[in-house]
């Protein structure tokens, strides 16, 4: 054997980590240093291929990596130290797991001989993150490190994407071992996600679609995760079949909001036409969505008369909440391609004129109606103005969680996938600002806006400092209603209007706060000043905190009250006190 000191694959564990990042095409990572990762930081210092973005809190690193991943389709990478660094990652890891976002987190760990001794900054990172990752690893031998890192990237990005974590003790980072570039055998033989759909099931699906009288396509984040081909095929399927299409919060943008078959989002705050179409349809094609409880409403009354086709890469999504008739397991791009091929060869566009007429009547209810005002900015109006002002621009939107998030989903039209980053499954307040940082790092010249709430934005506000440091001109558009609006809405509707701790007391002066960070602050109160202020925000090439003072007590409608079915939506014009009381009637038991 040759002299090991000349073997270029001999290197320290820390060097292997940087080398593996480069081999996987990673150009940007988000992280925060600490004792247990200093050898890695030392390697980062001595190279220039991987840019490290220093966040202000590890949660920010995780969400930034999520934003980066969702806006690019590439995995996001975060680097954190042991103990508190790792525990601060729990929220973003869980968030990424719920929303199927490919994330690779590398965490430092105390040296192997100290593991289990309650050493300084020790925690059981793999134990803590086991339920919030797709898979995780503790690497005890430097010679396993390359294999584990390559496998980590593969697991994060293949099948149903998700977060993974590799925990690397400090002595393993220092130790020298043999690196190898990625290769097939790096992956568990037990892990082989299914890509191709079953041909018989595909034929059954086409037969249902071809004979449908009242069809609907219900698509989700899986279509976007599958990649551009899935989006293209979904659009083609809508074109070829002429079917109406709705989507989950996560799936917005796969079909363009300006498309003529678009029904708007479905679910708890979805449009009347989307939910009624779902309820009354005879054939439902669910692509890359998972029938979660914000979508279905009461499950025993969910779309009672329909045959359901469900395309999903994760078999555990099938029949979890809703029994389906034709499950097809595999990659939705692949399966949509097969369905289209069979459909085009063997079926004709079904005549569903009567169904479209019915849908037109539901549309005419104008379920997103709101009363405009000359005195006070309505939050819906603010989103619409923002949308108009950014039309035709290269725009990416992130959000926090609350009413503003739902209004953004309802009133901001997305024409393309990867443009809409929101915390859907976990509903993480504080997601949007760091996610915007991640998106802006990936798309330095694009317009990146976090549509925020006054409460949420304070959860990760410190990442403004990151934005200023790296000259990331993110725009934080705060719909400031001085409330945790969504909490207040539930309290009004369900808890006798007892507004327990949902008022945003002692709000900071956001303009001064922006300036304190070295960013730009803009505040607007009057509807007449809104458009000009938005223009100003867009033209500033620096991070902006935009304090948009909106009507404090506006609520988000339409809405499916709890325990109700899709056809029992509460519409805005009905949402007077009496109707609301009736819709939410059912006792005072507080659960």
């Amino acid at each position: 054997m040759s002299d090991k000191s000349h073997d270029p694959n001999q290197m320290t564990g820390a060097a292997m980590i940087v080398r593996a990042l480069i081999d996987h095409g990673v150009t940007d990572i988000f992280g925060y240093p600490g004792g247990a990762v200093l050898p890695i930081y030392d390697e980062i210092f001595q190279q220039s291929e991987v840019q490290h973005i220093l966040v202000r809190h590890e949660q920010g690193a995780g969400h930034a990596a999520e934003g980066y991943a969702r806006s690019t389709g590439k995995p996001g990478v975060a680097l954190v130290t042991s103990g508190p660094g790792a525990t601060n990652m729990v929220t973003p890891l869980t968030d990424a797991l719920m929303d199927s976002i490919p994330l690779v987190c590398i965490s430092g760990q105390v040296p192997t001989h100290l593991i289990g001794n309650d050493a300084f900054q020790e925690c059981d990172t793999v134990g803590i993150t086991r339920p919030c990752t797709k898979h995780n690893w503790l690497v005890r031998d430097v010679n396993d490190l390359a294999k584990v890192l390559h496998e980590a990237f593969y697991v994060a990005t293949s099948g149903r994407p998700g977060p993974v974590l590799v925990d690397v003790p400090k002595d393993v980072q220092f130790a020298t071992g043999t690196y190898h570039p990625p290769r097939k055998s790096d992956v568990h033989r037990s892990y082989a996600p299914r890509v191709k759909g079953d041909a018989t099931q595909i034929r059954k699906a086409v037969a249902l679609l071809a004979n449908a009288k009242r069809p609907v396509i219900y698509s989700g984040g899986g279509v976007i995760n599958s990649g551009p081909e899935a989006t293209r095929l979904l659009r083609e399927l809508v074109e070829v079949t002429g079917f109406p299409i709705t989507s989950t919060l996560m799936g917005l943008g796969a079909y363009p909001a300006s498309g003529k078959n678009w029904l708007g989002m479905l679910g708890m705050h979805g449009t009347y036409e989307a939910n009624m179409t779902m309820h009354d349809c005879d054939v439902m094609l669910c692509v890359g969505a998972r029938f979660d409880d914000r979508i279905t409403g009461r499950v025993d009354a969910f779309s009672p008369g329909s045959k359901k086709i469900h395309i999903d890469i994760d078999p555990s999504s099938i029949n979890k909440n809703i029994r389906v008739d034709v499950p097809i397991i595999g990659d939705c791009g692949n399966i949509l391609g097969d369905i289209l091929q069979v459909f085009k060869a063997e079926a004709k566009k079904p005549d569903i004129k009567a169904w479209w007429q019915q849908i037109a009547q539901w549309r005419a209810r104008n379920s997103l109606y709101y009363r405009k005002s000359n005195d006070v900015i309505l939050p819906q109006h603010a989103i619409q103005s923002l949308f108009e002002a950014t039309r035709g621009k290269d725009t990416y939107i992130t959000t926090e969680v609350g009413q503003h998030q739902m209004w953004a989903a309802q009133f901001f039209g997305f024409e393309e996938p990867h443009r809409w980053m929101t915390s859907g499954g976990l509903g993480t307040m504080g997601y949007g600002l760091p996610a915007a940082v991640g998106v802006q790092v990936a798309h330095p010249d694009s317009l990146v806006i976090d549509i925020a709430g006054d409460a949420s934005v304070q959860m990760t506000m410190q990442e403004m400092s990151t934005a200023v440091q790296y000259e990331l001109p993110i725009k934080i558009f705060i719909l400031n209603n001085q409330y945790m609006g969504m909490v207040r809405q539930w309290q009004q509707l369900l808890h006798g209007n007892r507004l327990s701790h949902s008022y945003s007391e002692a709000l900071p002066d956001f303009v001064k706060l922006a300036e304190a960070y070295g960013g730009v602050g803009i505040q607007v109160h009057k509807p007449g000043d809104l458009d000009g202020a938005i223009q100003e925000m867009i033209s500033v090439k620096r991070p902006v905190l935009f304090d948009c003072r909106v009507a404090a007590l506006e609520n988000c409608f339409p809405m499916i009250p709890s325990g109700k079915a899709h056809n029992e939506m509460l519409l805005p014009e009905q949402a007077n006190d009496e109707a609301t009381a009736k819709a939410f009637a059912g006792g005072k038991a507080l659960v």
Partner: protein
Amino acid sequence: MNQPASAYFIEERHDPNETHTLSVLVQNEPGVLARVIGLFSGRGYNIESLTVSETESQKHLSRITIVTTGTPMVIEQIKHQLDRMIPVYRVVDMTLTRRSIERELAMVKVRGQGEHRVEALRLADAFRARVIDATTESFVFEITGNTDKINQYIDLMRPLGLVEVSRTGVAAIGRGPEGM
């Protein structure tokens, strides 16, 4: 149905529970059992019995046998959730194959004198339990069989001076020439 005020749809499901035995072939690596158990506790599934041991040391394969109860939809979920774990090779529902043999081993300590001792030995003989330890006032029996048989044997030992029981939990294997 009166729905309490809640952000969630609160529904009770009334499907009857079933008991299933699952065989799970896994890569024997650190934490794999924690993953499986964590899945059950995290998602609120039941574990009635769980056994695990390496079965092919060359390939680092372990076989986990889990007896679980749940509605048919939950059982289906459990299988899918297990199957999608990275180190899991295969999940077989032994109950659905209807061709599986299930065995458990128990060690049963009985303390007594005189007629009770004689009776314990007689029953042990009838159940094909072996004496693996004896003193003048006690026996430890080893018994193998399906869960029902072992339960029955333990019930019979109770009035004869049952002290304690140690059970392995269920191991299962399919009949016929094929492997899982």
